[in-house]
């Protein structure tokens, strides 16, 4: 790999503005960015930070009502603003390629994969259709798609999300571009698929000697993939550094705040996550000085003046007045850690909810068609002790949401039993009495969707209190409880009269939590409570969930695809795969050997973020099993024997295909459903063999 001194892409003082209410407002302001050949450059920022706008600006593909107001973009030494449409044709899709976030939207559903891939090389490289198809097949083979030639004949909807994204990557690389812009290419994918795609992107970019701009909100993937990283906040560059130095020693208070808010960085079971106060400014109310000043814990008077983007050494630059102090170690930009709310004696033996042999099969096929069943949840049993948090983790299609909906009876289970506070409860919502409804509250995945846009916060919460709290009927009582729960979730009473459209994503989730706790439930089920939120907001909500549990005498069932979130919150973890429990046990034990091969694979797929102690991250340790290949099978064609045998890296042989694995009991109620004995698993996983 030869390094040339001339950067491949150089963005200088770029400002892009959007027209809002007849006024031009900068979405990105004075952005400097340079990418050397062969460099993978990460661009990280929360939603609204302007990272996608920057990507679109480099591609010369700004949306209507946006304009390139100031600055230059040099690519291979040429100013892109001077290009004619014909010259753009030669650059876009050829020299600069793009991989979008949602492949299904980017692929034409009416054309085969082969036709669409061939079109790129025919247009840009002048290949004949036959040669182009041949080349497309070769490219697909390089992305490790099984049976690439057959894939060329398929239509986009016949491929899974991971396969579609492989096609997009193959298509983008087919012209051997110098620069690849990837806009959140793995956000829509499952953890295990995401890890595989990331490794593929890294290998292919290296192989094709391209450079890449990788746009993401996820610090983990950035850490895993990129060489250098630029942190964007409110449309301005806060800091640029190599991945190692950024994660080891962030110089900007925003970067340190962001890093501290990751649940994987929580130091221990009792700690709270550090959070960044306030919310990011909208396009119309950007601060005139330092954009981060209103939220900065170490703000000084000078911050009313905009700091310059100072170049420190090499690639590293930072936009902060106080970076010298931070670099010297005399100033700690992190929020002072707030001790966790004191939790009284935790989980007792008393069982709040007992789930017994719960099953749910979705029947499809209409009136005239033959019925076929999709087993979403099969034979799931577990107990929820008082004051405990059960974490349910699994990929999409694992049946975790169906399980939660069956417990609250939004989906009717086919068989099984539910016992709430020692009383058997019905599987049908219509047969449940008010006290069951009151004791079992559900927090929806999407806070925006679970609040009626035509109802105020007062109406949403008040209605719950009036309906489910039998002791409170008078208007004053309801109002008093309303104020209490709003305070408990950290909202002022002014929020009572707001409509959901006047709330931010994090505030909506607070209201949803307030609504759940207003009923004084015994058990709260939260389905992906933070998946729709930004990292810094996620930290706030996770803290809140912990605090509420300490204050209210409630248990939780938390469902997430994110192992970090689950292990931050839960005492007891249940790992679900194709509707079956693969492993369950105490938090500390599930994450350590011996563990189920699927749990092991999930843990492997979670990107580890360097904290400065390790020098360089590697995707997988040398003796670790390879990442999970392929996709989670459709529950319609559930594998026989052990459902995981089709992807299992520790596959034994026929026994896994033909026989249902036994449940092997470990210590403290730890259970693993596998044919491999626990001792053997431990030996395999600790690398002692």
């Amino acid at each position: 790999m030869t390094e040339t001194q001339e950067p491949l892409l150089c963005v200088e003082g770029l400002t892009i503005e959007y027209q809002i209410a007849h006024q031009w407002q900068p979405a990105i302001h004075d952005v400097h960015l340079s990418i050397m050949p062969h460099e993978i450059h990460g661009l990280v920022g929360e939603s609204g930070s302007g990272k996608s706008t920057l990507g679109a600006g480099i591609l010369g593909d700004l949306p209507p009502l946006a304009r390139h107001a100031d600055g230059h973009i040099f690519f291979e030494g040429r100013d892109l603003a001077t290009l004619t449409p014909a010259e753009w044709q030669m650059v876009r899709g050829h020299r600069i390629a793009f991989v979008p976030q949602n492949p299904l939207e980017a692929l034409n559903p009416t054309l085969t994969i082969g036709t669409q891939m061939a079109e790129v090389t025919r247009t840009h490289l002048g290949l004949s259709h036959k040669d182009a198809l041949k080349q497309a097949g070769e490219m697909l083979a390089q992305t490790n798609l099984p049976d690439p030639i057959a894939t060329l004949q398929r239509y986009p909807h016949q491929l899974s999300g991971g396969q579609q994204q492989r096609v997009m990557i193959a298509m983008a690389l087919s012209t051997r571009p110098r620069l690849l812009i990837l806009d959140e290419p793995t956000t829509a994918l499952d953890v295990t698929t995401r890890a595989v795609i990331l490794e593929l992107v890294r290998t292919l970019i290296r192989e094709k000697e391209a450079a890449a701009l990788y746009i993401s909100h996820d610090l983990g993937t950035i850490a895993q993939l990129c060489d250098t990283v630029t942190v964007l906040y409110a449309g301005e560059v806060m800091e640029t550094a190599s991945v190692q130095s950024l994660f080891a020693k962030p110089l900007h208070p925003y970067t340190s705040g962001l890093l501290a808010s990751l649940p994987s960085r929580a130091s221990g079971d009792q700690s709270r996550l550090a959070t960044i106060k306030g919310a990011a400014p909208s396009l119309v109310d950007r601060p005139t000085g330092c954009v981060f000043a209103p939220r900065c814990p170490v703000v000084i008077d000078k911050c009313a003046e905009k700091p310059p983007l100072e170049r420190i050494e090499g690639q590293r630059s930072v936009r902060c007045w106080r970076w010298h102090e931070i670099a010297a170690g005399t100033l700690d930009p992190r929020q002072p850690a707030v001790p966790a709310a004191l939790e009284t004696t935790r989980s007792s033996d008393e069982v709040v909810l007992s789930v017994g042999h719960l099953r749910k099969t979705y029947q499809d096929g209409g009136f005239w068609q033959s019925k076929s069943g999709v087993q979403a949840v099969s034979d799931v049993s577990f107990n929820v002790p008082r004051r405990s948090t059960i974490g349910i983790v699994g990929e999409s299609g694992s049946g975790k949401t169906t399980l939660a909906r069956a417990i609250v009876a939004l989906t009717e289970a086919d068989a099984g039993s539910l016992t709430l506070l020692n009383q058997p409860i019905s599987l049908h919502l219509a047969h449940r009495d008010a006290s069951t409804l009151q004791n079992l509250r559900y927090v929806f995945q999407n806070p925006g969707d679970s609040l009626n846009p035509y109802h105020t916060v007062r109406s949403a919460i008040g209605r719950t209190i009036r309906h489910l709290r039998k002791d409170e009927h008078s208007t004053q009582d309801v109002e008093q409880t309303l104020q209490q729960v709003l305070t408990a979730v950290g909202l002022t009473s002014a929020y009572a009269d707001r409509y959901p459209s006047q709330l931010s994503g994090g505030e909506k989730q607070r209201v949803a939590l307030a609504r759940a706790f207003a009923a004084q439930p015994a058990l709260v089920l939260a389905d992906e409570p933070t998946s729709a939120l930004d990292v810094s907001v996620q930290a706030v909500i996770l803290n809140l969930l912990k605090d509420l549990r300490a204050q209210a005498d409630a248990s939780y069932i938390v469902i997430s695809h994110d192992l970090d979130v689950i292990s931050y919150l839960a005492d007891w973890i249940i790992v679900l795969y194709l509707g079956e429990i693969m492993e369950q046990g105490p938090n500390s034990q599930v994450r350590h050997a011996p563990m189920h091969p699927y749990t092991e694979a999930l843990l492997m797929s979670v990107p580890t973020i360097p904290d400065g102690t390790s020098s360089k991250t590697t995707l997988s340790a040398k003796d670790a099993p390879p990442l999970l290949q392929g996709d989670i099978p459709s529950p319609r064609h559930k594998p026989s024997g052990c459902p995981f045998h089709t992807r299992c890296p520790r596959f034994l042989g026929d026994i896994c295909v033909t026989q249902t694995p036994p449940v092997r009991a470990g210590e403290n109620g730890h259970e693993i459903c596998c044919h491999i004995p626990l001792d053997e698993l431990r030996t395999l996983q600790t690398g002692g063999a």
Partner: protein
Amino acid sequence: MQTSLQQFFSVSRLSRTLRLLTADRAASVGLVVVLFYIGIALFGPMLAPHNFAQVVDDPAKCLTRSSGDVRCAALKNAPPSSANPLGTDRNGRDMLSRLLYGGRETLGLPAVATFFAVMLGMALGLYIGYVGGWPDEILSRLIDSLLAIPALILALVTLATLAPSLAMIDSPIIQSLGSTSIAIIIVITLLYTPIVARVVRAATLALRDSGYVEAAKLRGESTAYILFREILPGVMPALVVEGALRFSYAIFLVTSLGFLGLGAQPPSPEWGRMVLDARSNYAEAPWTLWTPVAAIAILVIGVNLLSDGLQRVLRGGPDND
């Protein structure tokens, strides 16, 4: 506690809708036209110089009787003049006065019928959309089969049988409103209820599985509460737009029936009827045909502009700025 419907119709919402409508050029033209016509329907008869059935005297053809009273011949087919700004028809009636009087029937019947159709269609659509299953299957197929019959033909057949039967009923309400008017209202309600119900059903389906409806179920709310408080506000924009569109079609239908001689009967100044009366008179007095035709055309265009504008404005969903 403010209810959701109050919120939908709250002063701030209405003023916001109005502000956005007036910012839209086409919609504001529609709004002005519709308001103008509503003014005619309400105050027209008070402003009219003559009664709709009154024959205007021709001052050139007057005779003074021996008893002293003056008897004049009717001013037939007079072109527009200062005395009769829109001329007179072949019976010598003032066209302007007839137009001003006719507004009530031409706008009133469609308005009442549309109101009934919207109310019934809303209830029906909400119910079958939310409950689904067999009620939805049966009622949806019934609606489909009703929609398969051309509207005008269905209207003609129903009207031909309904109006005479209604006339036989000895009821003061029917007597005062006229059996034909009541029959027309019933026919239009019958025709448009299924159409409105289909639109509401589709909008309800989209909201049925939303998180807030499920949240309401988990609170143990009644079906009626979920339908009218949780779902209806979200369906309202589609309903308002569809109502405005149905209104413009209803105007067409009422005037068409009048033109075919099945609706309003002479000497009614209903505009469709006026077109029918003027048709055979076109060679002598073209203005008697053009004025009611223009009145109907401008009204329908205005209502359509307004309903398009409403669609643009309400589509954005709730925004409580």
